[in-house]
Each structure stands twice: as C-alpha cells, then as structure tokens.
C-alpha cells in the first residue's frame, strides 16, 4: 500500500468490496455502536432521515454505503 505522495508522482491505493465493507463496519461500530450491515439496513429503512444532515458521522458513513449494496 502506498502511503505518501511525492511532488509529481501520484500513488493511488485500492480497496475491494470486502475491504470497503470492513471499513464501513469498523466506523459504524466506532461512531454508532452498530455493525456496518445494521447501519446499511437502518439507513435503507429511513431510520436516519431526520438526523442525516445534523450528525456528520452519519453522512460520512453513508458515503461508504455502495460497498454494502
């Protein structure tokens, strides 16, 4: 995994669907105390509609939802 950028050389790192889902899971547990799957299900059911724009962590997690589809 590349972790730095030089002045002109650009490194880009990649994560697969499982790694993306693992990241969602880790951050959902950190911010909300629930699993990534639980967050994805609750989001689809509309559980966070009222809070999504008030709580930055929800929008931040939502950006990872394509990994859960």
């Amino acid at each position, binding site marked *: 995994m*590349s*972790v*730095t*950028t*030089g*002045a002109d050389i*650009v*490194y*880009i*790192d*990649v*994560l*697969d*669907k499982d790694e*993306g889902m693992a*990241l969602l899971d880790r*951050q959902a547990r950190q911010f909300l105390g629930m699993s990534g799957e639980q967050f994805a299900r609750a*989001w689809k059911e*509309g559980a*966070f*509609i009222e809070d*999504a*724009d*008030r709580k*930055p962590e929800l*929008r*931040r997690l*939502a*950006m*990872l939802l*394509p*990994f859960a*589809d």
Partner: protein
Amino acid sequence: VTGQTQYEAIHNFVESLQLALSCVTNAVLRRATYNPRIDPQVLILNDNSPVLLPGAEVALHVAQHVRVSQAGEPSGSWYASSVGYYYVLMNRRGAEILGYHWHPIGQSSVTEPHLHLGPGVGVGNRPTAEAHLPTGSISLEDVLRLAIASYSVIPRRSDWDSTLRATKAAREPG
C-alpha cells in the same frame, strides 16, 4: 474525464484528484477496485478520516462518488464524472467548519449541492445552523484553494496554483 476503457476513465479521474490533494497533504486516496457491483464508485481520503492540513488548525475530510458511463464522442470511449461528494473542513477538535455536500442519491430531501455551516463556525441560530445553503457544484480544488487562501493552510507544492487549475480543468466536461 475520459478514457479508452472504464478502468482508464476512473483512473484518470482519481489521478487528477490525488494530484490536487498533493498540494496540501501527503495523504492518499483509496478507490474501490473497479467492480460493477460497487455503484457508484467510492473514493475516500485517509480511510474516510480527516487529515490535518499543514500550517493550519484545520483538517480536511474527502469522500467522493464517481460513475463511469459511455461517452458519446469519441465513439467507444468512457467518461468518469462526479455523482456525489463530501468535502469538509473541520477544526482540530473535529468540529465541522464548512461542509460541502452533494448526495443526489439517497433519502435526503436535499439533492442539490449545498453547504452546511458547522458547529466549528459557532453558528448558534438554529435555522442557519441546519440550513442547506445552495452552492452549485463545488470542485475539490475550490475547497483546497479556499483552505489555502482563507484558513492559512501552507501549500506543499510551489506550483499549487497551476496544479489546482489544471486538475480542475481536467475533470470539467469537455
């Protein structure tokens, strides 16, 4: 951003974003492996966590959604475009200052690009603190330039101005 293949289009898109980011941070973008089951494509900076910017008391959080589609011309080429973003400047304690959001897909009633004035601004007035202030589409370069010009962020590259111009232009529709 175009490419001869889907992979090339997304790669060129990500490369321009990473080059822009190199003006203010050595943190690395991660993108999803190209997989039709991941739609839209997801790009995240620093594992979806804020990055403290040099010389300043602000941190940057970047997440981006991208979709690749067949371009009309030239025939057979592919086009990668932004279909959502989350560009946030926050203070050292993690409180949002400015949150540029665009989430056209999902459950929010606000599907146009907008700005949130976060708790880090100290806006106590509830309608304003929760308002979705319309912005039009914002590029990552716009936010990086703002960070340098108004939040005392020290650029890492002497050619930051021309780099930001070039990378922004590279992703603008032909």
